[in-house]
Structures are given as structure tokens and as C-alpha cells.
């Protein structure tokens, strides 16, 4: 080639200069565990399904969601959403309304008739599930999907357990519950109602079951000895709420006192209000801060006119009144009695002091360990008797629908492994995507979308659902408030901010890769990644 005057070298590209040799630490892409996923007792991949919802693909979102939880429409109503408590967005403005998006997806699935994929593989194993509550249904779903033949034996007349016989209709309409149960049964799960098991081992042998998942729940209301008049009307919360499902509604009178401070106490007090009680008073021995009930429920109850006597215990129940003793908290936070008494007019007293488990079916099963009235299980949910697993309210844990669903899933996976003669090894969890890993500058300001609530008058007189749902536009908006903590959402920032073009864009859905020939290790991509999906690691020299 003839070169111009005074030019002796060929023109060259700087690509010959591999600036990657300058690097002392290198950026790497990673997925971090978002706090919502980490906080979900049912182990949902929340960030994962929100990502599909953000793109408007609700069916894909629902399918990812139901890989872990077959009851999204129920969960979107009754879950106390620890995911939202953990949500990083709360440190920016307000937590993402995960629960309301979940409900939207669940309702959308019912409306459009989405069904689970058909089961292709059969293992030939038979599993007995005892109890058709959230835990049992969840286990049945996951076991069926794993190819096992599942039979649920339910002592009650209908499926749902505490979702039907504990949670009032104004929180969970029964048609929603029925639709989600029906979809699980459509997988080929057999449900035998009114089938109480008396002796478990006999039932196992008779039905040729290879494994059992016990989830009988906690249906026996705890009693306490309260000196009472001969005609004092005292009920327990569980039986009261269960009778709400029957033909005849229970008679409570006009003035109702509820004893206890859990969510059940609130359910009873709010139900009493709807049955026409003019006064519905909760008596609780400690303060609002110490109350185990969830604050949102308490707030709704107070709005509806439920009254609460804090720091009070019931000393005597008379025919038309009860005597309450005032308490004070000592320095350790325990209530101590005072000499102050008060009389409340009351036509009936409902005890909501917690529930016990009916363990009679376990008689004669060797190796079981019962502690404080619940069955001890190993980390894999197996009891002391090989092949018998247990979960939900009958094992030591928090008693919520979500925890029950989580137990069902976990037990099902371990039962599956056990039936196949292996042990399930959980994949190690990703490191946490904490708020300090994010670059919040990049997120648009957007306050949370509030769900509509029913007007107060109807809340006090009917059993219509109190909290409404989102429609498509605001559900989409709410989903898009997700920060996608710790998981790349393809915002192109790393690709854009690299001064050395050392980030390769792989195309939609394929994310990015680093070109380490040229990456100088400046760390700009890490600093400017909104969601914390890149980290710097030292080079090995």
C-alpha cells in the first residue's frame, strides 16, 4: 500500500490494546435474593412473577406465582404480606402493593379460567393428605404435580379448613375459595369429605398409601376457667366462626364481649358487629403494641366501631354483665393485676384465646414427639415416624394461611424425595439484595395505589368483601413500582455507562456480558446499576 508523505505505519485500531490488563477487580453479574422473596413464608418468587406482570403478561406471572402457591386469589386477600413489610421500596416511598397485585392475578386467573398444566409423569406412589386446609391443599397440589396419586381425607363437610371455617366471608368470599380448590382437584386429586381418620396407621394400610402428610389444623378453642353465673352465655371463637358457615346464625345478643388479642378475636368482634350487635368489645390483657393481631385488621375493626379494652382481664362472667380487672405492665412488659375493677354490660362472651390441635388420630403411632400440644417435625417436615410428614397449624410455627401453604410445599418436595429414595438438598440461597445495594436514583417517584374499601355502613351490616381489588391499569402500575431488587431487569445502564464499551448487550431477555479484554474495572456499572445485580470481585493475581 502506498502511504502518504511522512507516514510509515499502517493505520490500526485501538482494539489491539487490551486494556483489561489494567484491572485489579472485575465486575460480575449476579442474582441477589430480593427481600420480598426472602420474607415470603410460602417461598414465592415474587420479584420473578412481578417482572412478568410489569410487562403485562399476566398469565406468565400467574404461572410463575403458582409454581409455589396454588392459591393466589385467596392469598391476595388473607395474607398479612410480610413481603411488603420487607420491601425495599418502603425506604424510598411506600412498599410495593404485592398483595394487591397477587389478588389481581388470582382473580384474573379465575375470570379467564386459566388451568394448571396437565401432569405428564406418574410415579405410581400414593400419598394420603389429612386435612383440606391451606397446608393440605398446597401439599396435594405439589405432590400431584410431582406425579404422585393424592387422596385428601377431610373431616369437615367442605374443603378449605380455617379458610372456610375461620376466616369470615367479608375477608374471603367463598366463591373465590371454591374456584381455587376446584382447580387443584382438577389435577386429579381425590377429595373425600366427612372422612375423619381415627387411627392413622390403619388408614394408611387400608388405602395402600406410601406416605402421609398430616395437616389437621388447630380447631379446638382453648378454654380458661372464668367464674361464671349459671346462665352466662360463653362461646369459643372457633365454634362460633364455624357456625357462621351453617344455616342458622349463632345468637349473640346486642352486647358482645370478645376475650383475646389475636386475629381471631378481631374476626369474631367484626362478625358480631355484622350480626347486629350494637356493642362489640374486645377485652385484651396487654396493650396495642403487644397485640398479636395485625395492625391493619385492628384498624379496620376500629373503623367499623369495634371497641377495645386494653390492659384488662375478665374476672367474672355474669348473666348480663362481666367484671373486668385492670392491669398494668411491669418493667418486663408483663401485665400485672391492679385493684381496679369495671363492669361491662354483656349478653354473651366469646373466648378467642388460641386453639389446640386434635391429635387423637395419632394414637398408636410410634416415634412421634408432641411438645406443647403440637407435633415436632424435622427440618424436612417429617415426624418421628418415617413416611409421616406434618405441617400447618399442628406443628410449631406461626399460624397463618401463608405459613400453611409454605409447609405444604416444603413437605411435598421432601415427600417426593423420600418416595424416590433420595434426600432433598436445598440450593443455597443467593446473597441478600439489601437497600444499600441499590441505586435508587433511577426509580421514578410513584406512590402506592390504595385498594378501594367498602363504605362503613355496609361494612357494619353486611358480609360483603371489605377490601376491593385493583383493575388492570392500576395493577400494572403497582407491579411496575417493583424495584426488581438484585435481579437484572434490562435497563441497559451497564451497557450505557461503560466508558470502554466493555459491556456486551446480548439482546432482549438475554441480559448482558462483560468483555474482559477491555474492562478496566472502574466499577461504574456496579455503581449505576439500579437494582444491585452486579458486584466487583478482586482479580486473582
Amino acid at each position, binding site marked *: 500500500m502506498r502511504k502518504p508523505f511522512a507516514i510509515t*505505519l*499502517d*493505520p*490500526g*485500531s*485501538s*482494539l*489491539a*490494546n*487490551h*486494556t483489561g490488563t*489494567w484491572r485489579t477487580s472485575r465486575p460480575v453479574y449476579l442474582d441477589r435474593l430480593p427481600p420480598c422473596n426472602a420474607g415470603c413464608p410460602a417461598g414465592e418468587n415474587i420479584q420473578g412473577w412481578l417482572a412478568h406482570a*410489569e*410487562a403485562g403478561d399476566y398469565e406468565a406471572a400467574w404461572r410463575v406465582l403458582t409454581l409455589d402457591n396454588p392459591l393466589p386469589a385467596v392469598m391476595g386477600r388473607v395474607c398479612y404480606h410480610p413481603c411488603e413489610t420487607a420491601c425495599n421500596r418502603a425506604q424510598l416511598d411506600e412498599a410495593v402493593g404485592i398483595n394487591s397485585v397477587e389478588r389481581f392475578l388470582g382473580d384474573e386467573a379465575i375470570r379467564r379460567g386459566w388451568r394448571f398444566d396437565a401432569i405428564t409423569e406418574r410415579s405410581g406412589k400414593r400419598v394420603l393428605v389429612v386435612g383440606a386446609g391451606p397446608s393440605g391443599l398446597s401439599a396435594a397440589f405439589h405432590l400431584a404435580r410431582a406425579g404422585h396419586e393424592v387422596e385428601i381425607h377431610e373431616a369437615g363437610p367442605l374443603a378449605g379448613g380455617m379458610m372456610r371455617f375461620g376466616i369470615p366471608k367479608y375477608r374471603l368470599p367463598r366463591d373465590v375459595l371454591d374456584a381455587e380448590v376446584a382447580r387443584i382437584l382438577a389435577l386429579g386429586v381425590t377429595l373425600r369429605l366427612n372422612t375423619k381418620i381415627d387411627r392413622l396407621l390403619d388408614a394408611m394400610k387400608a388405602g395402600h398409601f406410601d406416605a402421609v402428610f398430616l395437616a389437621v389444623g388447630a380447631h379446638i378453642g382453648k378454654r380458661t376457667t372464668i367464674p361464671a353465673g349459671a346462665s352466662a352465655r360463653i362461646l369459643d371463637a372457633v365454634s362460633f366462626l364455624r357456625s357462621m358457615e351453617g344455616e342458622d346464625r349463632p345468637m349473640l345478643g346486642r352486647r358482645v364481649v370478645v376475650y383475646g388479642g389475636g386475629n381471631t378475636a378481631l374476626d369474631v368482634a367484626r362478625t358480631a358487629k355484622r350480626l347486629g350487635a350494637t356493642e362489640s368489645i374486645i377485652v385484651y390483657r396487654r396493650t396495642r403494641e403487644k397485640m398479636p393481631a395485625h395492625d391493619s385488621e385492628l384498624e379496620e375493626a376500629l373503623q367499623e366501631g369495634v371497641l377495645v379494652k386494653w390492659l384488662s382481664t375478665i374476672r367474672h362472667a355474669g348473666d348480663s354483665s362481666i367484671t373486668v380487672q385492670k392491669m398494668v405492665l411491669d418493667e418486663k412488659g408483663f401485665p400485672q393485676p391492679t385493684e381496679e375493677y369495671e363492669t361491662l354490660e354483656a349478653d354473651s362472651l366469646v373466648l378467642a384465646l388460641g386453639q389446640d390441635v386434635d391429635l387423637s388420630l395419632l394414637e398408636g403411632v410410634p416415634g412421634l414427639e408432641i411438645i406443647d400440644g403440637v407435633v415436632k417435625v424435622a427440618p424436612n417436615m417429617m415426624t418421628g415416624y418415617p413416611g409421616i410428614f406434618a405441617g400447618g397449624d399442628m406443628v410449631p410455627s406461626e399460624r397463618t394461611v401463608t405459613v400453611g401453604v409454605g409447609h405444604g410445599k416444603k413437605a411435598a418436595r421432601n415427600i417426593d424425595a423420600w418416595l424416590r429414595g433420595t434426600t432433598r438438598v436445598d440450593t443455597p440461597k443467593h446473597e441478600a439484595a439489601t437497600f444499600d445495594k441499590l441505586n435508587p*436514583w*433511577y*426509580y*421514578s417517584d*410513584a406512590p402506592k*395505589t*390504595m385498594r*378501594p374499601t367498602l363504605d362503613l355502613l355496609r361494612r357494619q351490616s353486611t358480609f360483603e368483601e371489605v377490601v376491593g381489588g385493583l383493575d388492570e*391499569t*392500576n395493577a*400494572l*402500575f403497582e407491579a*411496575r*413500582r*417493583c*424495584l*426488581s431488587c438484585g435481579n437484572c*431487569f*434490562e*435497563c*441497559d*445502564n451497564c*451497557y*450505557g*455507562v*461503560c*466508558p*470502554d*464499551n*466493555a459491556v456486551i*448487550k446480548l*439482546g*432482549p431477555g438475554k441480559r448482558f456480558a462483560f*468483555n474482559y*479484554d*477491555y474492562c*478496566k*474495572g*472502574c*466499577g*461504574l456499572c*456496579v*455503581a*449505576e446499576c*439500579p437494582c444491585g445485580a452486579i458486584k466487583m470481585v478482586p482479580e486473582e493475581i
Partner: protein
Amino acid sequence: MAYQPVKFYQTGTFTVGNRLLPPEVRAVQANMRRTNSLNSGHRACQGCGEALGARYAIDAAMNATSNQLIAANATGCLEVFSTPYPETSWQIPWIHSLFGNAAAVATGIAAALKVKGRRDVRVIAQGGDGGTTDIGFGCLSGMFERNDDVLYICYDNEAYMNTGVQRSSATPFAARTATTEATGPDPGATFGQGKYVPAIAMAHNIPYVATATIAELHDLEYKVERAMQIRGARYLHVFVSCPLGWGHPSEDSIRVARLAKETGLFPVFEAIDGEVVSVSKIRRRVPVEEYLRPQRRFAHLFQPTPHLEVIGRIQAHADRNIRKYGLVDAGSE
């Protein structure tokens, strides 16, 4: 319930792209087929703001002109790190002549294209703050005054970085450089000196003057595109951070540029025919201290105890900018 627009894309246009945005709303930099005008292998320091700003601006200009673009480059970091003979990182027709004559070279190219009747080929001149505000200033003013059809882009990193961080007329007050050391009664660059070239450019009444930072990519690309739609002399002043000369970690280059804007120290605006027509508002106003602290060139302002009087004067300068350009909406604070 209050009306809520659905058009909310998680990060809006704060990020470079976003899978939820329609492609035409994404930045040029999000495109898999962007020009990469300044390609890999250049010898700029880690986290160089100027290398980033130059690729942002020239890629946007290439996109706006269907790749019919010639650039003249002044001497400076950008020239030295990109083109050590016989290698070059530039993937566009590019020429370097002298330190002070980039505007004149570009004027000549524009004149030649006019003679050849090539109205489709556009010309850019570019340089650092030294080549623009000091050494090349005469040529630049002449280019403005004759309204030559050139877009001049100044990448302002506030000192002569290539030769070892000496003060330029764009160095801010109190900043330490090799020639304004942090010693004596008034450490760092002297208050009341220096010049603000965007205002001088506006005083020439040229059709388009704008400022931008590497922290606001969509705004920067918009301004380049806008400038390429206009004929005549145009000036774009881009704020680019320098990890080496300013003494901040390389990963903070964009953050520092963002803070310069959010404090009000670097106003981001555009002006048509010498009149400001729009400003980029401050999103989250912060005191100047947040901008000064991460930079070692201002470290003497905080040692051994904060020099409140000096910091106060810098804050007053930021406040004056905010008033003068209306950088904060009335009632938003």
C-alpha cells in the same frame, strides 16, 4: 381514587434503556447497533467521564446525521488517549491539528463541504475545557461570530488533566490543582477568576447553546440531536468528571456529575438565539458539601475542620445559579 397514569415504566427515562419502553424512547446508547464512535482499547483512565461523554455525544450525532459526520479534535486528553499513532479508537472521520485551532479546522471543513455541495455531511469540533475556554478561545469566538455551520462540543473537566492537572479558566473556586495548591491563606483556585463560556457563547447570539452532564444521558442526547437539526454555529458544554484530577473513586464519575447538577453548581439548560428556553430542574436538591466532600481536590475545605466561610461562598454561587436559571420550581421545596 386519584387518576393514575399507566405510563409508568419503573425507571421512566432515568435509565439508559428499559425493556418496558418502546425502542424510540430509549437512549441511542441502549441500541445494540450504536456506532461506538469511541471504541474499546482507548487509554483513558478507569471511569473517565470525558471518554463516556464523548461517546454519548458523538454516537448521538452519528445517529442524528445518518453517520454523515466529520469531527475535528483539539489537543487534550480526548485526543491523546484515543489516538496514539498509529492506533485510533475513533470509528468516524476524525482529524487532529493543534491545541488551539479545532474551531478553525472545523470551520475550514464546513467551508470545503459547502463548496463541494455536500450539505448532508455535518461537522463537529470538540475539545476539553483548556482547548476551548483558554487556548482555542479566539478561534471559537470567531467561529461563533461568523455563524459557521459547526457544532462545537466542550468536554469540561475543569483543568488541564492531560499535562498533570493544571488550572484552566474553567477550574472552579477553591479547587486544588498543580498550579493552585492547597496552601496559604486562600488555598486552591482564586475566587472571582475564570470564565463561563456558555454565557459568552450566548452573548454571540448564535442559534443554539446548551449545557449537559454525563449523568443525564437522555437530556444530553436530546441536545445533540436538537443541535444537529439547526444550521449555523452551535455550542454544547458537557460536564465530565475526572477521577484522576478531581480525586474521587472511578466508580463515582456519574454520581459526582449528578451532584454537580443537583447542588446547582452546574446549571443544565438550553438557549436559542441567546435566550434560555428551557432548564433541567433539580430533582433532589442537596447542599454543595455533598458534591465537594467526595473529591480530593476540595479535601482542604474539610481539614482539619470544615472551612465554613469558603463552603458558604460556594453554596452562595450554587444558590445564585438556582435563582438565575430557575433550577427549582417555586413551591416544590
